[in-house]
């Protein structure tokens, strides 16, 4: 009888539990209820501490590859970029249009924290501000909510549904493509706006889109190449100012990947000594979502449908890269430093270093992003822009003057507009051999290389042919 009662109670209990309660996730047994990051910290305090010091949390770090960093820590928090300029004055907040619709929630949308700005000092509050789940829990989503005191904070969208939140919080894994791309594909204000070669399509693509990440092919995850230790993620491209503590780089020709002579044809291996793989294997980028190629902040545009202002942005799809020598270092236009003009009259924000004569240099493929940004008259310093309020009111003068006050402490700033350019290395959307560039794509009559800009008198192959013809006569 006792056994029957126990069985009956068991059956009732089973029926009362939702069917999915029996699913097991990686962290099923480690905790019962997720109560914010303090739940994670019970076992992962050390990991949280390494993350606190990482570039992903601090948004600035040692910058050994920036030739004019002079030992300074650099990153998006203390420099000025040509997309949304600087996140400090735009960190968090609900910006609404005249219809009350939310236009923007701040740059912290892509910071792996719950809304506090990172501090230099590690505190309990800062560790509990780390949002572990944004990178480690599949199916986790968050949004900006008002607290009872009127402040705002990022919270899981399931914050009122503890059962659902517990389920999601137990699905812990190393970051997958979908998790990385949540932020990295949407940076700059929209899908593929900023990078050009990092699109949401990479979550589910074929090998003609990207031979590494193709689901039906290698199905590689971002961290297969960007494999770091202690939250120190390598791979800062050519225009990311800060690096992690380690100086590890991500390169196709690492010995455990493709090596220095990966081709059967020797002529291609000879090329690979001075031409980086991406030049031939990324013939174009922005293959699904158009990318921002030129952002002019001096010309606000009103979008009636969204009741929102934006800078004038030129988008392009299927973009052919431009090519330049790169030796692994970059010159950056830093704040509080007079702007330096390039020969074409624009200010170089991120300029790859290297030349034909430099044996460490190779030719790389780049997205060349142009912009129009404000510069402080007299001192000639770049000024960021308080973009969030501008989206609602379109007052670009106020947005620049307020930014000069926030960033430099300068009242009523007088400024002028300058054209800028940023050379952004292109490293994704890699094509298999069958889709790579062929000889005549560069060495043909309408070849894509600007030989003069690369330091040659003309096509070096033609020069070699002439030389050998001369020798044979």
């Amino acid at each position: 009888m006792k056994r029957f009662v126990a069985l009956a109670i068991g059956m009732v209990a089973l029926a009362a539990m939702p069917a999915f309660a029996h699913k097991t996730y990686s962290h099923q047994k480690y905790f019962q209820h997720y109560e914010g990051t303090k739940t994670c910290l019970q076992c992962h305090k050390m990991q949280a501490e390494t993350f606190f010091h990482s570039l992903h949390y601090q948004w600035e770090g040692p910058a050994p590859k920036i030739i004019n960093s002079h030992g300074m820590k650099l990153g998006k928090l203390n420099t000025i970029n040509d997309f949304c300029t600087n996140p400090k004055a735009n960190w968090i907040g609900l910006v609404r249009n005249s219809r009350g619709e939310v236009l923007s929630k701040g740059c912290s949308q892509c910071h792996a924290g719950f809304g506090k700005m990172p501090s230099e000092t590690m505190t309990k509050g800062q560790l509990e501000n780390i949002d572990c789940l944004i990178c480690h829990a599949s199916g986790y989503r968050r949004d900006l909510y008002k607290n009872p005191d009127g402040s705002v904070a990022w919270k899981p969208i399931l914050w009122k549904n503890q059962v659902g939140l517990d389920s999601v919080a137990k699905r812990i894994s190393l970051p997958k493509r979908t998790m990385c791309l949540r932020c990295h594909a949407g940076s700059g204000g929209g899908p593929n706006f900023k990078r050009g070669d990092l699109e949401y399509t990479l979550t589910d693509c074929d090998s003609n889109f990207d031979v590494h990440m193709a689901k039906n092919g290698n199905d590689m995850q971002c961290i297969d190449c960007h494999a770091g230790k202690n939250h120190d993620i390598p791979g800062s491209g050519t225009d990311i100012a800060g690096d992690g503590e380690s100086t590890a780089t991500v390169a196709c020709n690492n010995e455990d990947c493709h090596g220095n002579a990966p081709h059967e044809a020797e002529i291609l291996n000879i090329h690979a000594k001075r031409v980086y793989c991406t030049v031939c294997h990324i013939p174009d980028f922005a293959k699904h979502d158009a990318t921002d190629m030129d952002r002019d902040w001096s010309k606000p545009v009103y979008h009636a449908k969204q009741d929102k202002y934006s800078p004038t942005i030129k988008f392009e799809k299927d973009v052919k890269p431009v090519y330049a020598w790169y030796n692994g270092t970059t010159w950056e236009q830093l704040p509080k430093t007079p702007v330096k003009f390039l020969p074409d009259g624009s200010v170089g924000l991120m300029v790859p270093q290297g030349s034909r004569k430099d044996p460490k240099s190779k030719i790389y493929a780049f997205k060349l992003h142009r912009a129009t940004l404000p510069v402080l008259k007299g001192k000639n310093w770049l000024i960021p822009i308080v973009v969030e309020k501008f989206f609602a009111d379109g007052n670009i003068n106020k947005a620049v003057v307020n930014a000069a006050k926030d960033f430099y402490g300068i009242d009523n700033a007088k400024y002028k507009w300058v054209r800028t350019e940023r050379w952004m290395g292109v490293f994704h959307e890699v094509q298999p051999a069958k889709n790579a560039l062929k000889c005549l794509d560069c060495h043909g009559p309408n070849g894509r290389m600007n030989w003069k800009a690369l330091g040659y008198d003309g096509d070096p192959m033609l020069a070699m042919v002439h030389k050998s013809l001369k020798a044979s006569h």
Partner: protein
Amino acid sequence: MRKIGKILSFTVASCAMVAFAMPAAAKDKAPTPRQLVKQYCRVCHGPNSPNGEYTPMTFIQDQWTDFFANTYKDAHKGVVDPHHNNKKVLEEITPDMLKKIEKYMVDHAADSEHPMTCG
């Protein structure tokens, strides 16, 4: 005889036109899953509703599947919909409509790739 022929060809032509036009018209009129959710769910479960606010991202996918399998009928037993002539919810929402609504809720649940509030 000629007249009969004319009538016949007119009838055949009209039938053919109707036959070709029907699927397109039906397709145009069929509400999308999102519209179904708005018209049949959100009208009673919108913001500040005494019945509770529910959007696709209120639950995770497993919770929605569980809800439609085990709770939906009991929760709506005897409930009438004032926005649809006070008809009973369980009769007004046909099994086919319910399938579409369930799929939409699951596809846009809190842990889906595209969580949605449904406006």
